[in-house]
């Protein structure tokens, strides 16, 4: 059991790490944030100064190293846009996210389980088929489509 737990935790850590690398690389290539942050009226020298101040002139591995080192100490960095600790901004939004997730979970469990049992008991009734049909529709419709319909 403990071996299993350790292994699962290790795997999760690996997944988090891989995600961090992926997102880091992704964000790095998507565009230089300074190009949208800085005022269009800024001169080349002022843009360069901003890049340097934000540490974006350093090589990617170095930026990543700094990020990981700070993250291990509980510092997730400072938001470029808000100039405040990133953790604080995440925590600000957390209640709303949790609220959405919990309500959605409660609703889907509350509605989903009875419907599933019903469909399972009478798989060939009209109700059963409708429920299974709706399930196959709901689980495969594109995310964006589901959200707007």
């Amino acid at each position, binding site marked *: 059991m403990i071996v299993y737990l350790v292994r699962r935790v290790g*795997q999760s850590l*690996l*997944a988090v790490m*891989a*995600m961090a690398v*992926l*997102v880091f*690389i*992704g964000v790095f*290539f*998507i565009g230089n944030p300074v190009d949208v942050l800085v005022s269009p009226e800024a001169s080349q020298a002022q843009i360069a100064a901003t890049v340097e101040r934000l540490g974006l002139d350093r090589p990617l591995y170095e930026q990543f190293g700094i990020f990981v080192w700070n993250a291990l100490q509980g510092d997730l960095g400072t938001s470029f846009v808000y100039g405040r600790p990133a953790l604080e901004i995440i925590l600000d939004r957390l209640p709303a996210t949790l609220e959405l997730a919990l309500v959605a979970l409660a609703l889907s469990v509350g509605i989903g389980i009875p419907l599933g049992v019903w469909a399972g008991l009478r798989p060939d009734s009209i109700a059963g088929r409708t429920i*299974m049909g709706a399930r*196959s*529709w709901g689980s*495969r*419709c*594109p*995310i*964006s*489509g589901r959200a*707007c319909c």
Partner: protein
Amino acid sequence: MTDIATPTPVRIDSPAKRIAKQFVEDRIAVIGLILFVLIAIIAIAAPWIAPQNPYDLMQLSIMDGGLPPGEVSMATGQTFWLGTDPQGRDMLSAIMYGLRISLMVAVVSLTLAITIGTIVGVSAAYFGGRFDSIVMRIVDLQLSFPAILIALILLALLGRGVDKVILALVIVQWAYYARTVRSSAMVETRKDYIDAARCLALSNRRIMFRHLLPNCVPPLIVVATVQIAQAIALEATLSFLGVGVPITEPSLGLLIANGYDYLLSGRYWVSVFPGVALVVTIIAINVVGDRLRDVLNPRLQT
């Protein structure tokens, strides 16, 4: 007298025939199949049957933009049965071409992903050991991320383009097949006929692909039908989010996205018709897939 010497010939159908027979027992599945075939024909034949080539900028005129269904073009006199988008694209033609792109992307990425996934999965099951655990950890890792997220990051790196969307879809999908094929191959590897084949000193390749693989096909087909609908939906989502196909060559998802801004202002046709086409396609494939799963899964047989 006759019972031993000449047994009554019991007709044993070939597996394909049995599956086909069982499949047609469900009327809805048959309708789904017919719909899907129709859609496929429209998609393949689009360049010859569509009234306009919506990807040829020379044929478009913004003066025809945003016309409601049934209006007539000022420039060419053609009737736009499903209206036009703001660029003056005939929605009917755009949907036909969009279907073509959507299906093409899904089928090509599916084929590639199945090929890669199958090779990886069968090898992992057959060789086992360290190779298996390394490969499967990679698969686990990948499956733990939402496909859409990985595809988004990949496309942000690669840029827009049909080829890039296909590549991204292959990368996010191969792991499903690798996992499916591996688990069924694991079961098969332990069976006697594989041992027998080994004793005959057949080459590994021969055992894997001639003996093992054919027995892993049924679950693969089920996963594939689910995944092809998923692939179409994923492509639509990516294009909807603006990282998929180029904007001058819209797929269904991009058509929906383009019309989204106009939905509230009454120009429903730009978004709704491609949306209907997308939904019908996905449902048709799903219905067929569900039925295939029932037919191919021996445990659900009564």
